[in-house]
């Protein structure tokens, strides 16, 4: 267990959250290297399949980040992401996965420190609950 490092797949939207992650980097903010960031055009394009596939094929957690409600570049993409996240919260149970393994966070383009904090929090939580049963 001691060498267990949680692996997080993060879907971040091009307009806000990816920029925030970029800002965290250029501002030299330290955060755990456990996250693998995948840039998507909008959080609303992350189908539940992508999340479930990641979780059942080796990821310990999935983080989905988008613009704050009302700020979506495509007006309502993040609201769609929210609706899908509700469905995902329900489905985690059907796959015997803990609710902590999936998280939806709103991170605006200027919120570099907040992005680093979300990743820190999630890594800590995943360290506590241990590796996924699909590993």
């Amino acid at each position, binding site marked *: 267990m001691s060498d267990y490092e949680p692996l997080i797949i993060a879907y971040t939207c091009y307009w806000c959250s990816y920029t925030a992650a970029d800002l965290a980097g250029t501002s030299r903010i330290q955060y755990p290297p456990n996250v693998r960031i995948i840039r998507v055009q909008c959080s609303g394009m992350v*189908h*539940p*399949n992508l999340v*479930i596939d990641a979780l059942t094929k080796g990821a310990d957690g999935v983080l989905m980040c988008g613009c704050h409600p009302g700020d979506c570049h495509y007006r309502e993409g993040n609201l*769609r992401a929210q*609706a*899908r996240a*509700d*469905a*995902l919260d*329900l*489905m985690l149970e*059907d*796959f*015997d996965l803990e609710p902590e393994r999936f998280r939806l966070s709103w991170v605006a383009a200027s919120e570099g420190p907040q992005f680093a904090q979300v990743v820190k929090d999630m890594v800590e939580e995943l360290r506590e609950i241990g590796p996924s049963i699909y590993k």
Partner: protein
Amino acid sequence: MAVKVAQEWFAICGGCEVTILDVGEPLIDLLAELEFVHMPVIMDHKLYGQTGEESKADIPEADVGILTGSIRNEENKELAELMRSRVNFLISMGSCACYGGVPALANQFAVDEIYQRVYQGNSTTDPGETPAEGLPALLDRVYAVHEVVDVDLMLPGCPTTPDMFVAAVMHLLKGTPFALETKSVCDQCPTIREQKTGEGITLKRPLESVEGVGEALETVRCFMEQGYLCQGPATRAGCGGMDGGTPRCIRAYMPCRGCFGPLTDQANPMVDMMGAISTIGLNPRDIPDRAAQFNRFAGSGRLRTKRR
């Protein structure tokens, strides 16, 4: 020379055998080219010899084997392996054989829970002992045929359609190409999709009839947008016939139930459908028993034993 066909059935209702009989007139031409050497549903050919004189079960050698039904117990498994060793080309026919089908709904429960429920915990019968003698034991879960033996061709559907059966047989006889449809039921559905998000739609029960019954389907609104759980987006097309006709249930003004199974072997209809309904504005919490609802015909390998 006639092509020899052997057929065996496992956990199934018998509907797929009826499909073979339902072929109609083309069957007369087909029968001249086919010779059924083993088929419990229509002929009296016994596994242990006609008088039970053999000590080992056997199926005559054949060119084509057809297996219907899912693999539920030790006997099914043994016969599937025996069939595989006796035939050159094996077809799994029907959604039970391809994806577990309705019997695989039992995969939500452990085997001892099932025994307990059926023989002791049932409120309408007297509790009794679980019979053990002379019966094959249940496997740990229900399996699709391809999870136990190699399968050369899968013909899904509950039941599969007669013209798909004929097309598959003709493909074997003539060597013409045969492939399952790769589109979804929605791709062949003529109803109108007005907008992606339905404002203020609520979930309706399948017992309530859809708006526009009896009218031309081209003028009826998408059943999903009306609030019915139509499984078209996550279901393989093909039930309307080999020429891409209107899907069977849609033709009868009923929402799709997903009997042709998922679009790919990797897909999970529950995840697809939960994504689809939350996207169009239905509340995913309103879905009763989502895992079984959306994996009704594809439970093998997808439905997991519930934690209690």
